[in-house]
């Protein structure tokens, strides 16, 4: 497929009809020329793959060296019983391509850890799933070096997170003009409005829109781990409502040994340190919550993956399509209450 051609064919317009009506032909054409790397095809990886392949991303490389296990069958819909014991990519690649024959798919069964930095340079955007804290930090160093947007997602049973590092990103949002005009300047710790234009609806001159360009500043994963805190950011009521998943997710990131299933004691100790740093009273985190988080640590749960994979894929599409502001810079999802706040760490 020629990536330089910005005109969509009649077939593409018919196939992508319902989404072009949302983000326009130009965004669809830009997506077609994009080159994305997805690391690890687990439950969240599968969901992201499905969504961005359906949406018509131009080129997708999947990097995964895992072998299919019995457990995978409960969280990954590309797999069937006969696939157990084979390489994940080998047994899923036909099913992925079937989703959308127009997408250029590349399968790499190499090890993530053995790839040198130059390997990553070829991509416009990288998505990492099922990565440890150290792996994430290493990957983030590389994406910073080459100025590549990075998405990281993972889950612990009913709890999940998304980290985004687009380095710096200008997004244009269009909204109906309200009585209070948008002013240029910093609007939050990571965002500033740099340009405001007014557009009048050509069909209805009474409708006046403001096109607001917002510059998003991002931090690296390592910096976020160091800087993340909720001190002075939440009022008493918000603090009371805060999901235990927030400090617990960070407690797990901060564990020295960095394994998928830490012991309960290790996690508790880390949680106490994080609570302190975040300014969250440790008694806010109920024992039941703690136990469940520890119990579900490292587990993939299909519907949670659907939510997280949907949110990551949508943001990736928005970044390529230059539509809507991207996530900046951290999401923590609590599947019990469906709480899904966006933090600017």
């Amino acid at each position: 497929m020629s990536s330089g051609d910005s005109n969509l064919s009649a077939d593409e317009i018919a196939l992508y009809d319902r989404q072009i009506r949302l983000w326009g032909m130009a965004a669809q054409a830009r997506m077609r020329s994009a080159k994305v790397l997805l690391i690890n095809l687990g439950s969240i990886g599968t969901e992201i793959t499905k969504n961005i392949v359906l949406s018509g991303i131009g080129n997708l490389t999947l990097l995964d060296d895992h072998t299919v296990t019995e457990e995978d069958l409960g969280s990954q819909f590309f797999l069937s019983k006969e696939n157990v014991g084979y390489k994940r990519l080998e047994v899923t690649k036909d099913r992925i391509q079937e989703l959308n024959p127009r997408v250029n798919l590349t399968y790499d069964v190499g090890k993530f850890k053995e790839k040198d930095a130059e390997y990553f340079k070829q991509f416009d955007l990288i998505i990492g799933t099922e990565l440890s804290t150290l792996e994430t930090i290493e990957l983030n160093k590389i994406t910073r070096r080459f100025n590549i947007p990075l998405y990281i997602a993972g889950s612990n049973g009913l709890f999940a997170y998304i980290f985004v590092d687009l380095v710096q990103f200008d997004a244009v949002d269009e909204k109906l003009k309200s009585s209070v005009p948008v002013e240029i300047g910093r609007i939050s710790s990571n965002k500033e409005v740099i340009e405001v234009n007014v557009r009048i609806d050509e069909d209805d001159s009474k409708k006046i829109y403001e096109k607001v360009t917002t510059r998003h500043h991002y931090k690296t994963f390592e910096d976020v781990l160091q800087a993340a805190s909720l001190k002075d950011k939440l009022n008493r009521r918000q603090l009371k409502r805060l999901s235990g998943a927030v400090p617990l997710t960070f407690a797990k990131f901060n564990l020295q040994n960095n394994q998928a299933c830490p012991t309960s004691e290790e996690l508790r100790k880390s949680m106490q340190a994080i609570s302190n740093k975040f300014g969250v009273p440790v008694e806010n985190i109920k024992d039941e919550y703690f136990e469940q988080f520890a119990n579900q640590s490292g587990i993939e749960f299909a519907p949670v993956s659907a939510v997280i994979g949907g949110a990551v894929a949508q943001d990736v599409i928005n970044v390529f399509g230059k539509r809507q502001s991207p996530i900046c810079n951290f999401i923590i999802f609590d599947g019990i209450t469906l709480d899904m706040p966006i933090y600017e760490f």
Partner: protein
Amino acid sequence: MAGRESNIVKIVGIENYEKIRNCKCLLVGAGGIGSELLKDLILMQFGEIHIIDLDTIDLSNLNRQFLFRQKDIKQPKSTTAVKAVSHFSNSKLIPYQGNIMDTNQFPLHWFNQFDIIFNALDNLAARRYVNKIAQFLSLPLLESGTSGFDGYIQPIIPHLTECFDCTKKETPKTFPVCTIRSTPNLPIHCIVWAKNFLFNELFASSITENNQDEQRLEDKQDWGTEDKEEIERIKQETNELHELQKIIYSKDSSKIVNILEKLFIHDIEKLLLIENLWKTREKPTSLTLEHIESSKKIDVSKLKLDQIWSLEEQIAKFINVTEILMNRYSIEKSIEFDKDDEDTLEFVVTAANIRSYIFGISMKSVFDSKQIAGNIIPAIATTNAIIAGLSSIVSLRVLNLLNYANVKKPTDINMAFTSKASNISNQRYLSNPNLSKPNCNCAVCSKVCRGVLEVSTVKLQTSTLGELIELIRTTFKYPNDVSVLDVSGQRLLADFDFDDLLDKTLEDLKLGEGDVLLFTDDEGDEDSNQFRKSLELYIAVVSDKSDDYIKLPSIEVPLIEKIEEAESNDMEEEINIATNANEETIILIDEEEALELDKQSKGKRLEREDSSDKDNIKKIRTTNTIEDDIIELD
């Protein structure tokens, strides 16, 4: 445990996992949300899933309905979806191609086999219907919907939390006749004119039928004007249009120019004579014969669907496509507008654009006009995936399978809707308010109690109406003075001065499967001025029980304050406003968000995907649920 169940067991525990394996789900819809839900429910290891869809697969579904391929186009969605998931499914799956509202295929007792219902529907009528069924059977329902980036899920626990109809839903836009026929000022006005008026006048089956329709409807119209002169002109114009249909009959393509002249020159000139109309408006400028003449040089085969054509190109294409339709008409005898029928779409778009030009309105490409004419709602994979995922996750709480997050009261459970993507907040991806209690003014879930009366075939023959009333009175604590109405048959069965039928058996009274009885407290309690709430009972005849089996629903019928009888239309209005206000408060969960909340964005939530293929459009027409279409008020 290391198997496909190991993850879910860690989340819900082994006992609750067994409950999931024994759980029977009804999934209504196999489209965008339905495909995603089917996958999620299977991976959660639900034991049995029945999936229903009326539709067949269309090309425009493939950007999101990930279970379908190019080769599946025109196949039924339900059966194709079930085949597509078989490689990863460990659940018993039963597909049905049918309309969930078809009581022959899906009678009430059929619904009773399920533990939970998931709605993944694309229209209001079916959502309302399933909601009502859930109320009758006290079945938990997970309602959901998406439109572009926007989506919502709402768990409904009958009698305990808000039902689908507790809040007023957005109704489709309508326009006054005068705006459509005389004074358009937006592209949509011209498209409605071309589609709902012009196209029908020219290509509907029979002239006489149309005339009758118009006679019947004429008095009820919202003309949007008091101007007698203008109303007369509109009526006359309609009559003259019937003359134009004769040109279509004639199959004489040289006369298509006459259609153009009539619509875009003579009618506009007449319109200009009504001076009142143009005192505050820009006057239209009619087409000229030169325009029509110069359009003849144009090669219509080169026109692109995503571009805005010039006026001459619009005229050339109009002539070209009218000729095609003329020839089709002589064979098909009647042509209906269908957004996926290129000829009908291009006729409507070119006619609308020429009219737009005349009225100084901007013209639109075929691609953009199709969205308005076909009432297409944008739909993407990601929103559907998120919404289906949320619906699946929250089902664990609705079924109370998370021991560590025990549901003490149903209002502990959360609903959710997109927040960031819908421009409501930048601080949260979702808004997740707790469920509300039922709206006490809701006609579906609150004004009456509902339940199923199960009765054996023998009992139906032996039990008298008097005995049944006595049983209901004692069970639900009604006073002596009750009235009983046969809702299905629209007849009174008993009240304080009508006791003739009390000795008749239920069978004598022709009561049986599917009939609905309404019990009303006519006496009340004088001291407290309270009344027992009315009770609607659906009769279900069971064959596998003992001869004297009769079972009332295990619900409580509460006492309520007396409601004034005389409820005028004005009061209904007020109730609606109150309901709206109520809806607002649900969403105001955070003071910060209250400021950001855009009232408009909420209305959009409650939408549906488009109903895509021809069959569906026809069915919608025949069942008279045109509420999903943009309609002119006539």
